[in-house]
C-alpha cells in the first residue's frame, strides 16, 4: 500500500507553546489510522495543520506525494482531504437534507455547478447516506435542532457526501450514546471498505480505537511517543506511562 499522507517533522507553535514538535507519521492508502494521546497533546492541532486551517512553522505535509502545507483549507478540501470537527460544525439553520445537498462533490468545482440541478443520483446518495447514519427520518428538521450526537453523525454523513479520498475524524464517538458506538464503529469500517475512504481518526475511547484502527500513533506533549499496530501501542511502556497512567 502506498502512502497517502506523509507528515514530515511538522512543528506548530502558538506563541511560546509548542503544540506539535517535529511530528512525523504517515497514513497508507485505504487503511484506518488512529491518533491517540492525552488531552493537550496536540492531536487536533495536527489535524488543523494537515487540512490547512493554519500555517505550520516547520516541516512538510505530503498528500498524494505533493506538499500541501502551503495550500489553503478549501484547496486541500477540493483535493479530497477533509476533516470533521470535535465540536461539530453543521449548517444549523438549514434542514438536514440541505446540509447534505450542499456537501455534494460538484460544489467543489466552482460557482457554476451550483446553478445546475442536483442530479437524481446525487439526491439518492444524500438520502442513502442519511439512512446510513440513521438520520433519514430527521431529514426535514433544522440541523441545529438535532442533538449533539446526531449532529456528529450528520457531519460524518456530509463528509462522506463530498466523496473524499481521505477523511480526518476528530473524536467521532464523543457525545454519542454508548449503545450507538458499536454501530458507529461498524459504519466507519464500512465507509472505509465500501466507499474506499482512507480514515485518520482521533479517539479517546480505547476500546473503539483498538477495534477500529489498523495502525495507531500516540502523541504526548506534541511529540510522537510511539506508533505501530494497536497491540504494539497498547503494550508500549511509554504509552502506558504517558497516556494510561504509570502502574
Amino acid at each position, binding site marked *: 500500500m502506498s502512502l497517502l499522507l506523509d507528515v514530515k517533522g511538522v512543528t506548530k507553535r502558538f506563541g511560546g507553546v509548542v503544540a506539535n514538535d517535529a511530528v512525523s507519521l504517515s497514513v497508507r492508502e485505504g487503511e484506518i489510522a488512529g491518533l491517540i494521546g492525552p488531552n493537550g497533546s496536540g492531536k487536533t492541532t495536527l489535524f488543523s495543520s494537515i487540512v490547512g486551517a493554519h500555517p505550520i512553522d516547520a516541516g512538510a505535509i505530503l498528500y498524494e506525494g505533493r506538499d500541501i502545507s502551503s495550500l489553503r483549507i478549501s484547496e486541500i478540501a477540493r483535493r479530497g482531504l477533509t476533516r470533521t470537527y470535535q465540536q461539530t460544525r453543521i449548517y444549523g439553520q438549514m434542514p438536514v437534507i*440541505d446540509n447534505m445537498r450542499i456537501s455534494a462533490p460538484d460544489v467543489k468545482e466552482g460557482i457554476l455547478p451550483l446553478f445546475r440541478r442536483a442530479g437524481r443520483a446525487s439526491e439518492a446518495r444524500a438520502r442513502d447516506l442519511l439512512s446510513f447514519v440513521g438520520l433519514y427520518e430527521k431529514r426535514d428538521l433544522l440541523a441545529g435542532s438535532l442533538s449533539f450526537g446526531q449532529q456528529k453523525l450528520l457531519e460524518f454523513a456530509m463528509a462522506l457526501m463530498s466523496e473524499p479520498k481521505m477523511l480526518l475524524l476528530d473524536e467521532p464517538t464523543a457525545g454519542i450514546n454508548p449503545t450507538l458506538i458499536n454501530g458507529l464503529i461498524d459504519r466507519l469500517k464500512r465507509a472505509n471498505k465500501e466507499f474506499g475512504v482512507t480514515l485518520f481518526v482521533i479517539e479517546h475511547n480505547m476500546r473503539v480505537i483498538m477495534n477500529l484502527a489498523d495502525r495507531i500513533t500516540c502523541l504526548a506533549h506534541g511529540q510522537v511517543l510511539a506508533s505501530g499496530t494497536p497491540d504494539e501501542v497498547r503494550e508500549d511502556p511509554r504509552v502506558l506511562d504517558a497516556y494510561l497512567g504509570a502502574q
Partner: protein
Amino acid sequence: MSRSAARYAAIGGAGLLVLAAPFLAPAFVTQFTFLWLMIVFALTWDLMGGQLGYNSFGNILFFGIGAYACAVFQRDSGLGYYEALALGAALGGVLAAAAAAFLGLGILGLRGHYFAIGTLGLGIAAGEIAGGWDYVGAGSGMTVPLFPGALELRSLFFYFTLAALALATFLTLRWLYGTRFGLALNAVRDDEDKAEAMGLYTARLKTAAWSLSAFFLGISGALAGNLIGFIDPRDVAFAGATYGVWMVLMAILGGKGTLWGPVIGAAVFHITQEIFWTYLLGWQRVALGLLIVAIVVFFPQGILGTLREKFPGRFGSKAEVQ
C-alpha cells in the same frame, strides 16, 4: 378548486391589482411607485443580510452609483429620452455590480460586525466624494432630463417601470434561492469556516451575491433619480440616514432570510410611514423611531419569522417523519 388553481387565481388577482392600482387610486400613484422601490431595497438587502449573513450598511452606495451613472449618461449621450434612460439604467446596474465586485475583494474578507462597520463608511464617503466632484454637479447635485409627456403619463411610466423592476428582482431571487447557489449562501451564513473546509468557493459566492444585489440597486437608483427628478449627493443618491437605514429595517421587520419577508416588511413599513406623515406631522420621525424599537423588541425574527415560529407547519417545515 385545487391548490394549483387557487395559486394561479391568487397570482392572477395580484397581477390585476398591480395593473389596476394606479387607475383605482390615482392620488396614490407616487406612493405606490415608492413602495416598489422600497421592495427592491428590502429584497436586495436581504440577499446579503438575510441569506448570506453579511449585514451591509453600505448598500446605499450602489443605489447612488446607479443614480449618477444614469444621469450622466442621459446628460452626455445625446440619445432620446427613453433610449438614454434604458441604457443609462443598464449602465448604472453594471457599474454598481462592478463596484461591488471590486470593493468585495477587500471588504467581504471582514466578518460579522467588522463587515457591518466597514460598509457603514462606504455610503458616507461616496456622498462626500459626489458632493465635491464637479463632473456630477458637486454639492448642487444633478437634474435629470424632463419627461417628454404629460404629468399623469410620467407617473404611470415610473409606476410600471419600478413595478417591473421589483417583480424582476423578486423572481430572480426566488429562482436563485431555489438553486444550490441559494443553499451555498445559507451555508456561508450558518458557518463560513465549515463551508470553506468543505471546498465551497466562499469568496466568489460572496462577491457574486453582492454584485447581484448591487446590480438591481443600481438600476433602482437610475429609475429613482429620474422619478425624483433631482439627484442630491447626500439626500437622494447616498441617503444613508433614510434609504440606507430603511432597507435594513424593512428586511428585519418582514423577516430576514425569507423571500416574502422583505416584501411584507417594505409594504408595512412604507404604509406606516405614510400614516405617520399624515396624522403625526412634526412627530413622524419620533413615531418611526419608536416603531423601530418596538419591532426589534417584540419581533426580533420579523413578521414572517414570528409567524413561522408559531405555525411551522404552514411554512412547509416538517417535523419528524415516522
